[in-house]
């Protein structure tokens, strides 16, 4: 029967993608449904920190151990998404230096390598660090690109037979007595409803999982906590900077790709506000004020954007008040918990533990399907990480240096799939992030790109300092060439891309960022005639 799968995964974040990959590798026929694009939820809205676990060592040893294990695994299986920068936990005069000993001991117990540095040594290896520091501990923190990580999982899942449908919203869980047997969906691009059946449906909707479970009449209490972050225009630090004290607001500065990120704040928000993320001036203020303490340079470095994500925190089942929060992984077998067969919820956890979450989920699926196949995701490298950077370098020797390094950092060993036979293919679409025409075409052909915002998540176009000023129209041109769409829709797509860029700039719109966005507005509105009218048309 058509539209029949072994399992259906709802949610295209890192967890959903991880489950799809794990299942496919174990021979389970999977369908992944995502109402928007992949990595649009919390997956794409965090620090991109490759936690060593040190942050949790004192307060949550279990999470710390999970983190360091997954940290070491990701370095191997997702090498092209990871930057092995290491991190510092610094003590400032206002901090209790005694905490350092507690911290180091907790790290040791969790199996996290530490090295105590004297302040001078810390300043030498990380010149941007607050020079008044009184102590520093080096830990194996790093940076991870969540977009590339999720994309690589999707690519591998598809390569092993999984089907992925983005812009497909689940409107109903089909129930036969005490069993979920499938889902009814709405295709947001084709504007039609469809039905898919499977033996097991996995709810990997992150914070949106509460709503999905509710469709089966099941209560999962999520406790949405908003976290805001600021992106700075360029790399300020090359080592992750943390405060050596109990975790609090704005105490992590991560060097991610071409930029640095300070975050996060933490504030509870009502569940009905999870799709309405607004950064307040107070949040920007906290991030800057606290961030400056890690690196004083933040006070005078250009800010590119502000954004916020929602942590998928879950209230513990044994506590009806919802106060006791677990930061760990929450895997709910609704057959056991609620007497509902064929339905699993995987939530909680962190980007760092997406693979482990997928492993647990797939183990449970296997049990339900009566399969006995071991998990291999901890050993099998993801596409992009099967060859070393050096080997890939050799294959694409002929590309200009900067472009070569950029595509390898984004696509790993898949970089050689990008066309570069002539100078046109090597011409840049995005100049800030060195994205060529060849790369954009590769993404459009192979990485399920439906609009300019999707394209940004696959290639980083528009993520640089110009925030789409130069690349948006070029990319729109290439999109139009590949798949001739009506001019009205193309204009609407362009407008929605630019508005999405503006949304991130608005909370920090001053100085050069404001000047540049005014210039962009002038180019698109006054020169190209892209007016408000086009914005009102919905995209997708």
């Amino acid at each position, binding site marked *: 029967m058509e539209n029949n799968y072994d399992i259906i995964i709802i949610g295209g974040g890192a967890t959903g993608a991880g489950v799809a990959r794990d299942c496919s590798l174990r021979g389970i026929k999977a369908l992944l449904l995502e109402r928007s694009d992949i990595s649009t939820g919390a997956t794409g809205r965090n620090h991109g920190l490759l936690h060593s676990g040190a942050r949790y060592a004192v307060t949550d040893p279990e999470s710390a151990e999970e983190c360091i294990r997954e940290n070491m695994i990701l370095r191997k299986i997702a090498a092209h998404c990871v930057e092995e920068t290491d991190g510092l936990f610094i003590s400032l005069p206002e901090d209790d230096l005694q905490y350092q000993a507690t911290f180091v001991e907790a790290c040791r117990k969790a199996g996290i390598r530490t090295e105590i540095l004297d302040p001078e040594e810390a300043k030498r290896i990380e010149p941007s660090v607050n020079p008044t520091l009184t102590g520093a501990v080096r830990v194996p923190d790093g940076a991870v690109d969540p977009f590339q990580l999720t994309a690589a999982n999707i690519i591998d899942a598809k390569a092993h037979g999984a089907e992925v449908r983005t812009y497909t919203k689940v409107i109903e869980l089909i129930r036969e007595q005490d069993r979920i047997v499938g889902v009814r969906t709405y295709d947001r691009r084709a504007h039609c409803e469809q039905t898919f059946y499977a033996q097991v449906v996995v709810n990997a909707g992150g914070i949106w999982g509460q709503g999905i479970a509710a469709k089966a009449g099941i209560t999962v209490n999520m406790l949405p906590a908003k976290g805001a972050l600021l992106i700075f*225009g*360029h*790399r300020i630090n090359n080592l992750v900077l943390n405060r050596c004290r109990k975790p609090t607001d704005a105490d992590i500065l991560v*060097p991610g*790709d*071409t930029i640095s990120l300070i975050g996060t704040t933490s504030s509870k928000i009502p569940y009905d506000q999870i799709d309405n993320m607004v950064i307040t*001036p107070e949040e920007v*203020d906290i991030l*800057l*004020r606290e961030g400056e303490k890690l690196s004083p340079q933040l*006070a*005078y*470095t*250009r*800010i590119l954007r502000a954004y916020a994500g929602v942590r998928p925190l879950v209230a513990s089942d044994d506590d009806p008040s919802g106060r006791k929060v677990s930061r760990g992984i929450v895997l709910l077998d609704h057959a056991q918990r609620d007497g509902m067969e064929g339905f699993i919820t995987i939530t909680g956890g962190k980007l760092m533990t997406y693979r482990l979450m997928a492993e647990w989920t797939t183990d449970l699926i296997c049990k339900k399907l009566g399969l006995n196949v071991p998990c291999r995701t901890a050993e099998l490298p993801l596409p992009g990480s099967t060859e070393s950077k050096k080997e890939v370098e050799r294959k694409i020797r002929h590309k*200009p*240096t*900067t472009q070569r*390094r*950029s595509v390898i950092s984004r696509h790993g060993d898949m970089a050689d799939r990008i066309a570069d036979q002539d*100078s046109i293919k090597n011409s*840049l679409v995005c*100049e*800030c992030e*060195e994205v060529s025409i060849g790369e954009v075409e590769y993404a459009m052909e192979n990485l399920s790109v439906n609009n300019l915002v999707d394209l940004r998540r696959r290639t980083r176009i528009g993520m*640089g*300092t*110009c925030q789409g*000023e*130069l690349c948006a129209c070029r990319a729109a041109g290439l999109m139009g060439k590949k798949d001739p769409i009506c001019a009205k829709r193309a204009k609407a797509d362009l407008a929605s891309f630019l508005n999405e860029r503006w949304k991130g700039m608005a909370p920090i719109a*001053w*100085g*050069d960022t404001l*000047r*540049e966005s005014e*210039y962009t507005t002038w180019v698109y509105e006054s020169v190209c005639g892209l007016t408000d009218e086009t914005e009102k048309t919905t995209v997708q």
Partner: protein
Amino acid sequence: MNIQQNTVSENNFEQCIKCTICTVYCPVAAVNPDFPGPKQAGPDGERLRLKQPDYFDASLKYCMNCKRCEVACPSNVRIGDIIQSARIKYGPKKNTSLRNYVLANTDLVGSLATPFAPIVNTAVTLKPVRYMMDKVMSIDHRRIFPKYAHGTFTSWYKKHAAASQATYPKQVAFFHGCYVNYNNPQLGKDLIRIMNSLGYGVNLLDKEKCCGVPLISNGLYKQAERQAKTNLSSIRLAVNDHDMDVITTSSTCTFTLRDEYPHILNLKNEDVRDRIELATRYLYKLIQSGEVQLKFKEGMPPLRIAYHTPCHMEKMGWGYYSIELLRMIPGIEVIVLDSQCCGIAGTYGFKKENYPTSQSVGEPLFRQIEASGADLVASDCETCKWQIEMSTTKACEHPLTILASRLA
């Protein structure tokens, strides 16, 4: 709320709003597709190099350091400085070929060549010699070499001029540069004649080394820094101990002493920077102040002169002074050529790999010169002079040489 008042970044690279005007004005980007242009090589590349130094692209060597990008930039980004600094910071550390060493060490080569000037000058015009330099050293065989003088300016000065300078009521120091010293002592003599006629004695600096611009563009940064330090202490001596302004006839030497020292070599000079002056501007200001007056010969034949604004002159914004000074000379008609790069950019155009770029960059200027109907071209830059004389049918002289020839 503590809102950031101003964002600050080295060389203002974050002030770039990607308008791309710099690339439009870049003479190299227009003719050499291997050069990604100042925006890419400068602020865009800097962001990537901050991420990881190995994003450094070897094509940055194609930048001529003409600074026309900086003149064009509406956001005050020091694009040329970003590129030069990146070459120092991230570029190959030992990239000095024999060729680059010879081209860069104008002082050393000059002092070796001047005693044998007649032989050297003849030798470099011989086809086999040029062919050999092309093959062995990658100096393009089509490039015509500047002539060396038989004897340096400084040795002439010591013999014939030094003694009389103290008799003038006012004193000024002269940074002669390599060109005056080894190639064209006449320009130094002309300057002394002009200054003396206005009541100014001309003194040499205590110790003078090449300003360092060829060293910087050929990757000999340490040596450039050493020489700059020597020059700065000599300049400080002249300014502080003897209260003398320091003037130079070369626009590039002036620019280097004033701006490249602090921006590229990180040597502070703000205490003396305002006292380092281009000779034509110094003279123009003296005349404008009414303090002095030039007396010209009468009945000289009319002369049509086309003035070419060198890139570093454009960067300083001082082309005006040379042009107006020329206009003060009776019988001289001045046409101002479009401000565009001649393509030689110091030692850049001597290199075989740059020769086609160099000549393509200069092409529009050469055409304009030929069509101008001028008798003579004038320019404050010696390497522009070489390029123009090699690539057009016209001779090119320094404005002060022209002025001195008509002095009463």
